């Protein structure tokens, strides 16, 4: 039920920012033990520079034609669009699965190990199906509330940890190994999946300016850097004792006797994963050529749920579906290779 009225591009970039932060909230990735803060910061800057580059092809298409990539591809290659659509649908199913599994893992490890994980996934998907059917505009409006909530939550988490800061000057030395750099960069690069979301959904927006992308990616990078800073200088060795350093930070935040903001962390995680999966369901709709269709959203949600059941029953499937190297490669193809191909061969295809 996507309306035809275009909404401001800023709102989509706000959605992209919120979707991007789900990566650090849901990842049980630990920064390398022997790498310094400065080294990790360097890999973060590299990864986010690459992420910004991933946006370029779709941003060019949007600036030149005011179309999203799928509409552009549909006009350029009406006969081959089915293959492109199929690839993007598969990519989005993989991405949705990636985040759903990560969220359910976090739920199981940090919140309730006795909960029925399939019921959690089913409830989450049901909410996402509704939001996905409502369209990007509705999700965008919802994102304003989620952004305000996240802003307050992160403000409390960071300010509550200031009193715990212990600045260790050795962390400012440039120390780390090549493999650490590759691991870190690959992990931070996971946020580039937002470039594909932008490529597919940017057609619904108006007043697009390239600086909006730079701002959105920049703010996400600053947030990641802040989390990394507090992880290094508040948690120290403790960060390696458990997964989810952001969760630990929410537990160590305190104002006098008021402590433990882990419920805020869990709420932001739930809200951001809801945004990610709703947006992905919306992207799937768009990839199939329809702006919004309940049967398509429902059908793909069922596919995602079936895959989720498989992932939890067969560990090999789970490992495959939660591999961020695979996600990055697929993102690179979806956000850079295919749109660039269309950009450069645009004229030939026209002829």
């Amino acid at each position, binding site marked *: 039920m996507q309306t035809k009225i275009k909404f401001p591009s800023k709102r989509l970039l706000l959605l992209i920012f919120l979707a991007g932060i789900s990566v650090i909230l849901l990842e049980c990735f630990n920064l390398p033990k022997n790498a310094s803060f400065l080294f990790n910061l360097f890999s973060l800057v590299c990864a986010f520079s690459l992420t910004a580059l991933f946006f370029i092809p779709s941003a060019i298409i949007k600036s030149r034609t005011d179309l999203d990539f799928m509409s552009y591809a549909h006009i350029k290659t009406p006969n081959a669009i089915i293959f492109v659509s199929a690839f993007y649908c598969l990519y989005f199913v993989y991405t949705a699965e990636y985040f759903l599994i990560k969220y359910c893992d976090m739920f199981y490890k940090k919140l309730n190990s006795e909960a029925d994980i399939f019921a959690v996934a089913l409830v989450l998907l049901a909410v996402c199906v509704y939001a996905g059917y409502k369209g990007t505009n*509705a999700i965008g409006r919802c994102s304003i509330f989620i952004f305000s909530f996240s802003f307050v939550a992160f403000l409390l988490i960071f300010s509550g940890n200031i009193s715990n800061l212990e600045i260790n000057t050795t962390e400012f030395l440039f120390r780390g190994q090549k493999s650490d750099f590759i691991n870190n960069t690959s992990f931070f690069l996971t946020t580039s999946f937002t470039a594909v979301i932008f490529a597919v959904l940017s057609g619904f927006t108006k007043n697009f300016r390239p600086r909006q992308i730079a701002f959105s990616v920049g703010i996400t990078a600053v947030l990641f850097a802040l989390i990394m800073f507090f992880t290094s200088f508040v948690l120290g060795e403790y960060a390696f004792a458990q997964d989810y350093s952001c969760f630990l930070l929410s537990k160590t935040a305190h104002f006098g006797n008021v402590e433990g903001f882990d419920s805020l962390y869990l*709420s932001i995680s*739930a809200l951001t994963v809801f945004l990610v999966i709703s947006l992905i369901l919306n992207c799937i709709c768009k990839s199939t050529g329809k702006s919004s269709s309940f049967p398509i959203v429902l059908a793909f949600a069922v596919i995602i749920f079936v895959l989720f059941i498989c992932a939890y029953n067969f560990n090999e499937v789970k490992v495959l579906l939660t591999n961020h190297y695979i996600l990055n490669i697929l993102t690179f193809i979806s956000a850079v290779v295919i749109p660039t191909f269309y950009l450069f061969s645009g004229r030939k295809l026209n002829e």
Partner: protein
Amino acid sequence: MNKKFILILLCISSILITGCSSSKQIDKASIAETITVGEKDGKTCYTFFLLSSSDSPVFTSVFAESFEEACEKAKSEYIPNLSLSKLELFITEERLADKTFKTDIKYMSEKPYFSPLMYVTLCDANLTEKLVNDKMLPKQVEEHLVLIKNKSKGLSVNSLSIFNNFFSDINQEFSVSYINSNNELKVETKVIKDEK
């Protein structure tokens, strides 16, 4: 307007569903607030002081070699609904520090339900005996720890700080608080030397 309301309601319900799934009825849960590690008849004894409305302390003692074993034993044999997420104070008798302190801290750091800001201190043998008779004593200990923490900046009084000192490569020794209860409560500092 109605649709907006439904969307907001769905967002809020997604928070509530995740946040309340692990809730327990307060009267059914056995919430441990303080744990002491002492010695009885030559064996290490972990005592779990539970939240209660009675005037005298409600506690269960478990003989175990480590905190991990004590938690498992307590849950399986004595307190099935034991909740450790509200644990505020962990007190170890100084004579047992070499035996249990480091492993207990490590265990606590690995479990998500323990607060990293939980107060951890050493004490003399009298304090563990006094705690079973005086319900207000843990609060007094905490107040003393807050005061000494504000005075001595280098002192480690919570599990986060003690863990970092034990397991970082930098410090060979560090200071923790020590409760002396011979006459009245008095907080001192003890230096812990740790081989890295």
